[in-house]
C-alpha cells in the first residue's frame, strides 16, 4: 500500500512548488496548472497526492475550483529537521564535556 504522508508530499519538487504557489493565497485550479510546463493530468496527480497528504484542499465556489494550503501538517517536517539541530547541539555538549574533562585530567 502506498504511504500518504507529509514527507511523501514534499519529496517532489513540483509538489513543493505547488505548495509555495498556494501557501500565501488560495489559487484557482486552472491558474495553478498554468504555472507549470507539465501536463494537466500530471498536475492533477500531484494535487491529488497533496490532498491525500493533508497539505491542500480543493474548494468549489460557483463554477470555480480553488486550491487552499493546509500548512499545519508541515510542522511534522520542521520537527524532522529540528532533530538534526538537537543532535548536533548534543554533540557540542559532548565535545565541551570531553574537553573540560581532558583539561582537568
Amino acid at each position: 500500500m502506498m504511504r500518504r504522508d507529509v514527507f511523501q508530499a514534499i519529496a517532489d519538487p513540483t509538489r513543493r512548488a505547488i505548495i509555495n504557489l498556494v501557501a500565501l493565497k488560495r489559487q484557482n485550479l486552472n491558474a495553478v496548472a498554468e504555472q507549470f510546463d507539465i501536463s494537466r493530468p500530471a498536475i492533477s496527480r500531484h494535487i491529488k497526492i497533496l490532498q491525500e497528504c493533508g497539505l491542500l484542499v480543493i474548494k468549489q465556489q460557483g463554477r470555480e475550483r480553488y486550491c487552499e494550503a493546509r500548512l499545519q501538517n508541515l510542522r511534522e517536517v520542521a520537527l524532522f529537521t529540528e532533530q538534526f539541530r538537537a543532535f548536533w547541539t548534543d554533540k557540542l555538549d559532548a565535545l565541551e564535556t570531553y574537553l573540560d574533562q581532558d583539561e582537568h585530567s
Partner: protein
Amino acid sequence: MDTSAQNQPIVVERLFRASPERIWQALTDLDQMKKWYFKLDAFKPEPGFEFQFRSGTSDGTQFLHLCKITKVVPCKMLAYTWQYQGVPGLSEVSFELFAEGTGTRVVISHSGTDSFVSAGPDFALASFTKGWTYILNISLATYLSES
C-alpha cells in the same frame, strides 16, 4: 520557484575555551573521537577518506552511517558527506573553526537533511530520535562516569 525554505542547512555553533589545534585533535584523532563522538574503526583527515559507523537504538535498531571526507583545512575546516545505508538521501556536514580571543568558535553546518524526508516519519521520529537519545544520554554518561 523558491523552495529554499526546505534547503537551508542546520547551523549550530559554540565558543570553546580551547585552541583551534586542541579542537582539531578532538575532531580528527580516532581515540579522542571515540570519547565524545562516535567509535570508528579508522579515521584520517584526508579528502576522499571514507568511514562508517553504526549507531542505533536500545531496542537494537541500527543505522549504518556512511561518510566520505570532502574537505580538509587543518585547524580550520573539516567536511564530509553523511548518509545512511538503506535510506535514500545525501547530506553533508562541515565543522569550521574560528579563533576567537583565547578560545575557538566551532560552527557545525548540516546541509541536505531534507533529502531524508522521503524516508518518512518511521525513520525520523521513531527509531532515529531514540537512537540519539540512547547514544547521548546513556553511552556518553556511562563513559564519563567510568573515566
